[in-house]
């Protein structure tokens, strides 16, 4: 079985981001970029499944500018067997990414597609779900535990949901998105970094995959959230109730 893992190059989680003055987005000039933490967890899970003998190959895929190759190299250094770079300078929204991944899945025929539950730059939490829907495959999102049954061709996944933990059983092939507590991703050790140098990264374009990248969504502006104002001291309970009803409109 082959596992496809989508990894996204995002602003490193520890960076203090700033919005560009023209409000078109976040300033990414000279800012440290890394693999999305949830994608690292996704890749780690795929590697563990391969090491347990359930899969033969782990393929990492990244969609974006030329620097995505660095992200893929990190993935290869962690242990992925090969990488696919869909090169584009446009910034695609989840539906377009999902269409690209669908096209790749039809090309590669994986038994599992792993993604992070969301990217820490846009927090969309949509791509995995959309990929599953486009492919007509079952999905198990927010996975905190994944157990494969090779003979029955199913995966039993514990999902972290608001009410607690939900356990699903999905037929393979399936899409799984990973949550924080699924695993602790490994560090890329030096021997693996060295080995990764000779692992292939295939370059593809959206034209190769015959994907229509037109988007129905346009980002109008990106602004910082309003500064938190200090609280107001009220003199009596009546004044509090008055404010709650007439100003905040919550009672």
């Amino acid at each position, binding site marked *: 079985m082959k596992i496809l893992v989508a990894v996204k190059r995002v602003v490193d*989680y520890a960076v203090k981001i700033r919005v560009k003055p023209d409000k078109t987005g976040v300033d990414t000039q000279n800012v*440290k970029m890394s693999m999305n*933490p949830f994608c690292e967890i996704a890749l780690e899970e795929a590697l563990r499944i391969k090491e347990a003998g359930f899969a033969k190959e782990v393929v990492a895929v990244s969609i974006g500018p030329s620097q995505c190759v660095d992200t893929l*190299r990190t993935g290869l250094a962690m242990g992925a067997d090969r990488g696919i770079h869909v090169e584009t300078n446009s910034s695609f929204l989840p539906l377009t990414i999902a269409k690209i991944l669908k096209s790749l899945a039809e090309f590669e025929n994986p038994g599992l597609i792993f993604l992070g539950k969301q990217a820490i730059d846009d927090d969309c939490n949509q791509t995995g779900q959309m990929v599953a829907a486009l492919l007509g495959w079952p999905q198990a999102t927010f996975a905190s535990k994944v157990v494969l049954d090779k003979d029955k061709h199913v995966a039993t996944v514990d999902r972290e949901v608001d009410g607690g933990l939900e356990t699903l059983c999905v037929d393979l092939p399936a899409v799984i998105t990973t949550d924080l507590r699924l695993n602790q991703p490994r*560090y890329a050790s030096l021997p693996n970094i060295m080995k990764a140098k000779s692992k292939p990264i295939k370059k593809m374009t959206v034209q190769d995959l015959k994907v229509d990248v037109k988007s129905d969504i346009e980002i109008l502006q990106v602004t910082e959230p309003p500064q938190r104002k200090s609280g107001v001291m009220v003199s009596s309970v009546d004044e509090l109730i008055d404010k709650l009803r007439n100003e905040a409109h919550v009672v």
Partner: protein
Amino acid sequence: MQRFFAARSILGNAVKTRRSSFSSLSSSLLFDDTQLQFKESVSKFAQDVIAPHAERTDKTNSFPKDVNLWKQMGEFNLHGITAPEEYGGLGLGYLYHCIAMEEISRASGSVALSYGAHSNLCINQLVRNGTTAQKQKYLPKLISGEHVGALAMSEPNAGSDVVSMKCKADKVDGGYIINGNKMWCTNGPSAETLIVYAKTDTKAGSKGITAFIIEKGMDGFSTAQKLDKLGMRGSDTCELVFENCFVPEENILDKEGKGVYVLMSGLDLERLVLAAGPLGIMQACLDTVLPYIRQREQFGRPIGELQFIQGKVADMYTALQSSRSYVYSVARDCDNGNIDPKDCAGTILCAAERATQVALQAIQCLGGNGYINEYATGRLLRDAKLYEIGAGTSEIRRIVIGRGLFKEQ
């Protein structure tokens, strides 16, 4: 925009603060892509696994006991960077070793010093001078981290004048009997494998020195009290005591009487790899100072806007960058087979003296807070100072360079 933190960052604020300042401070000009990847990877590993123990290691003056850092570093293939692959090493060079040393030092000066003594002073000396049998016997466990390595040359009365050492090795049937003391032995308390220099011929001066491989548990070999040091606390250091300790013939490293060559040539590479230690400390100083000056306000604005502070961090930054360039250039030369004792001594002379000054300035930037032990700056200064002394004092290094220049045609 919400930020979701990966599991690793839950380790605590101290770790997060450190990682948040890792940006373009590491010169990408010095390293190729693979080396940069390695630097980043070791940095993450060191910050996650080693840095959380730094403060407590210093406070308690003992190497972390609740985690097995030796084993974890071994699993991360950090010990045998310069050792052959057949013994579990990576067969890479001093450049990679320096990268690892710098990043570990950035996380904890004490752990890095112990790591340096283990991986370079012990392991690398075995690699360079050991017989196949010796390498097969000792290297695998040292490289995996199961065993800890150390090296001992200095004595209570023989520091800079190391050749005047009094520790004697008398020839007997099948081996030697060693009597004497060694001082300031890093990792001495816990080491299983130690390289010890002793005089097999007390009348032959430097040509009477022989290097021996000592094993913990050998009859007549014991360790005395752990030293209470100013800095590098937790990098367990002690005195070694030899009382009629029998060492078999096959434990001689290289040949009888050739110890001084093993010692001196080893010192060159020791100085190079350890030079990466002060680099890590200087980086740790910047890691602490930069967020602080952006946050701390006086006179209605961040102190980082004040010229004096900007001057100080500029000096700290350039001291680090220039030292770094020197160290890694020399490392590259050594990897290519050009080992110049003057430059090896030069790198650590330069980096160490600058690190002490950078640490002093770091304390100054933090002002009153810099004087409080809750902040790392005090420890960074105390740790930095060691590098002006160990592996040949700054004075000895100057003699090596000056004398070398004088002798050149």
